[in-house]
């Protein structure tokens, strides 16, 4: 007797296949479109140097957006990522330059502090049930304040060579930050799609009550998601400081909005349950392409902001339309 249950997505008409289009598809297509538009307008775009720059420049955004994706999957949000990045970079500067500690000690300390910050966020949100928006908004102000307080507002320059290598080094001609960002995105995607933890995160975002009743360790997974987000924020902050060769409390000011936009453009839903770091990656690339195109064309940053904001709304609209289409077809 033929089983009516197929373990693979069946064939069927094109219309039936269309909703299987992944959430990050829109970001990828958008990025390609923008790339084409910019390439037509600027001869300087399609050079290996410029393209390499773009991947290097957007690496930090991609990494922070990936961390954000973990949290957004649980229907949470982390507004403090840029502040945590700044704090971690500032700490690294203070430890390694002002106090002459070896760079890897500084690096480890910063990542550990980041994990602690993430755990704190996770406990406040998951155990005390405070809204993530409020907790991390407070974090945004507090952690940046701590960073500024640490150095009295002074930026540290002259960071150790390995740190600067993280931000600006090359391996076989490929920028190190680009390699790191691709690795982070790849590993994160595997975790979210192919592990029990990843399934649990998505279940928490999709139907927390059901997940809890099914035996998913909601509190533990939620805290882990916030820890991952903060640790990746620290990594990004250190890479950015290495790239600028400047570590201080004003690093990545206001960057959190770009981070959330990158994730949302990439199809990671603010309501939880859907999305993947691959989307965050393409969302970051899309934003980077717009910035690159504007810089090459000499367009003012005000217009850049308008365009980026418009793309964000458009991307989320496309994603909603895709879901709507899926429901109508069945």
């Amino acid at each position, binding site marked *: 007797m033929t*089983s009516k*249950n*197929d*373990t693979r997505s069946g064939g069927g008409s094109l219309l039936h296949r269309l909703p299987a289009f992944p959430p990050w598809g829109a970001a990828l297509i958008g990025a390609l479109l923008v790339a084409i538009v910019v390439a037509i307008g600027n001869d300087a775009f399609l050079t290996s140097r410029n393209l390499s720059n773009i991947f290097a420049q957007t690496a930090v955004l991609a990494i922070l957006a990936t961390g954000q994706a973990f949290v957004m999957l649980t229907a949470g949000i982390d507004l403090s990522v840029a502040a945590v990045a700044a704090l971690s970079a500032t700490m690294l500067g203070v430890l390694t330059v002002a106090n002459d500690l070896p760079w890897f000690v500084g690096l480890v300390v910063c990542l550990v502090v980041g994990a602690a910050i993430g755990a704190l966020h996770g406990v406040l949100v998951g155990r005390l049930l405070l809204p993530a928006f409020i907790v991390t908004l407070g974090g945004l102000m507090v952690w940046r304040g701590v960073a500024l307080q640490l150095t009295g507002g002074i930026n540290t320059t002259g960071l150790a060579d390995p740190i600067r290598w993280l931000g600006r080094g090359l391996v076989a001609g490929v920028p190190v930050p680009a390699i790191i960002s691709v690795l982070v995105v790849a590993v994160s995607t595997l975790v979210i799609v192919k*592990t029990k933890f990843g399934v649990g995160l*998505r279940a928490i975002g999709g139907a927390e009550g*059901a*997940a809890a009743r099914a*035996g998913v360790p909601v509190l533990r997974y939620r805290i882990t998601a916030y820890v991952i987000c903060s640790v990746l924020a620290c990594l990004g902050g250190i890479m950015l400081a290495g790239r600028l060769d400047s570590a201080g409390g004003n690093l990545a000011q206001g960057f959190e909005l770009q981070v959330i936009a990158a994730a949302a453009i990439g199809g990671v839903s603010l309501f939880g*349950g859907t999305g993947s770091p691959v989307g965050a990656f393409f969302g970051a690339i899309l934003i980077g392409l717009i910035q690159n195109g504007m810089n090459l064309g000499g367009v003012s940053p005000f217009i850049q902001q308008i365009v980026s904001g418009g793309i964000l709304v458009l991307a989320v609209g496309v994603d909603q339309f895709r879901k709507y289409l899926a429901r109508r077809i069945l």
Partner: protein
Amino acid sequence: MSALNEAMTAVPLLEMRGVIKRFGGVTALDDINLRIDPGEVVALVGDNGAGKSTLSKVIAGVLQPEDGDVLVDGTAHKITGPTHARSLGIEVVYQDLALAPNLDIATNLFLGREIVRRGAFGWLNTRRMRAEAKEHLDSLDVNVPSLTTPVERLSGGQRQAIAISRATYGGHRLIVMDEPTAALGVRETAKVEQLITRLSERGISVLLVSHNMAQVKKITHRVLVLRRGRLVAERRTADVSAEDVVSLITGAREE
């Protein structure tokens, strides 16, 4: 409806003796005595506020009784919570189905108890889960387009079927269901009723809380009538008519 052991089995699957549940000054369940045998489909009926929901929750381990014994397979247990109840083989299909709509069918079937490969990372054994899901659904004759379909894209009846399949996977023997077809259309209701019957044929018992007398008549073996916390009547379904049951519920007829 056959396959039910004609002679009552010696040891009932579930038995309650003198169970009392109070909330402050209110007695929600008063001296409940019942038994459910393997493979039986038992209807639990009563008016609003009669105590159906409380009784289901006591069986499911969500609430603990003040007095009385709950026996599973003849042994008395103090069921401390839903996880404990699950380990005793009792599972509940909730109104909201406890499904994650954004995840696919196979993932939902295994939610919270995924099959993982050896090693520390919790790496999913997706192929095996899909194969076992397919097997389980086939055995219950549940039809779905594809195991990778997100549950939110299924019809209400299909979702109910998945929720029931999930509850029965893993050797659970008593499934408590609260109005499973209340929100479904005629065709889908029929399908779910067939599924319940198949469960019973496989020796799984079902406690069906229902207001739908036609459904009760169609698929249940026995009817338990609750009124104001007391079990006022117990009948074999074959022996009563729908009107009789209604009268028992409202008290127009006494036991």
